[in-house]
């Protein structure tokens, strides 16, 4: 399989969350804030890349009968490493992610890529596949969290993962800047609108199901339309 195809598959064609519906548990639980989604995305990419690389390196040594315990030990090791590193350097995200950080060990995406790809392909392809699948998962949970935080609280605030006091991006500032251009006498009218009409249920667990359901429906519409277009292009040829 060529590398472009691997990237395309991981990010879009077989996106772990939107297409394969893998890793639903953390995706539903931690996507109430964009900060959490970014932290979880980084953790999953870290574990996925390192475990895929190691599993690919030792694929010819490990007999298939004991591959499952070997994979679990490797994945659990990297999950513990990222837990310790987050506890030391990104404590707020570590607390926010809570139990869902150690639970990456049993995330189907990671085990799935190890079993289906890394144990059968070379190191470079495995690393690319891990980056693409991890990136696809991260992209998906960030999309869910953007919708949930913006519509659920009326604003999005992204902080530095290593220093939660440092705000990197805030929609409040952006809306106020935009509001100032449109109506300088009442520059807060856009942020006021979002705050006033926030749908608080979206930051609750049930909101995660609703948002994910809508996003999966949109992805399915796009996928089906693309398929139809390709089919009709094939017929006309």
């Amino acid at each position, binding site marked *: 399989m060529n590398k472009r195809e691997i990237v395309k598959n991981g990010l879009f064609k077989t996106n772990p969350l939107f297409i394969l519906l893998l890793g639903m548990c953390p995706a539903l639980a931690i996507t109430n804030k964009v900060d959490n989604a970014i932290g979880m995305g980084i953790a999953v990419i870290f574990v996925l890349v390192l475990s895929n690389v190691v599993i690919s390196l030792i694929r010819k040594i490990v007999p298939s009968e004991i591959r499952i315990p070997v994979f679990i*030990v490797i994945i659990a090791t990297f999950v513990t490493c990222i837990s310790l590193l987050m506890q*030391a350097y990104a404590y707020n995200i570590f607390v926010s992610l809570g139990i869902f950080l150690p639970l990456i060990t049993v995330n189907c995406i990671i085990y799935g890529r190890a079993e289906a790809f890394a144990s059968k392909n070379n190191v470079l392809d495995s690393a690319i596949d891990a980056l693409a699948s991890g990136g696809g998962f991260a992209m998906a949970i960030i999309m869910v969290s953007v919708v949930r935080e913006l519509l659920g609280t009326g604003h999005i605030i992204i902080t530095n993962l290593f220093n939660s006091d440092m705000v990197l991006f805030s929609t409040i500032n952006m809306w106020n800047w935009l509001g100032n251009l449109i109506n300088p006498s009442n520059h807060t009218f856009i942020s006021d609108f979002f705050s006033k009409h926030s749908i608080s249920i979206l930051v609750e667990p049930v909101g995660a199901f609703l948002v994910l359901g809508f996003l999966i429906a949109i992805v399915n519409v796009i996928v089906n339309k693309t398929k139809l277009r390709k089919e009709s292009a094939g017929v006309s040829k």
Partner: protein
Amino acid sequence: MNKRVITYPLILGSVVLLSTFLLAFVYNITKPIIEENAIIRENQVVLDLFPGAEIKVVEGELTKDEKDAGLTSVVKADDNYVYTFNTKGFKEGFVFLIAIDGEGNFNAFHIVSSMDTPGHVDNVRSKNYSDIFIDKSYDTEFGDNLIITGSTYTSGAVADAVKIAGQHYGRIK
């Protein structure tokens, strides 16, 4: 068959060994930073209680009773002795601070975190509850006055802590 009996455990053992080395390496790198951050967070809570206070760690070994009650550290914020407890209410991880001023009276109680049922924690967080021992002398016998019916485990942990903090203060004053 015989070959498998040797090679499979050997491979699995090697993977576990390498994982252990990696974990030990990461643990040793992160341990001092995690401990340092914990102290900073703890001091921050003390500073929230006593703004601008100069914080000093109170040296000295804790007794078995003090350790059993979950007393983890004692610091001096100006004239106040601040006791940090990490104990078990209904569940593990009930962290709170009790302070005694220079005259030997309890003067602060603050819950940092708890895994207990929020209702039980709210019962002990209420001002009515802390008023039972705040402004009272460190050697006051509270008996069962600090036990709340229905929140026995949570309030029991605080009652034990108040007693232990008083004993510690009496020992070092």
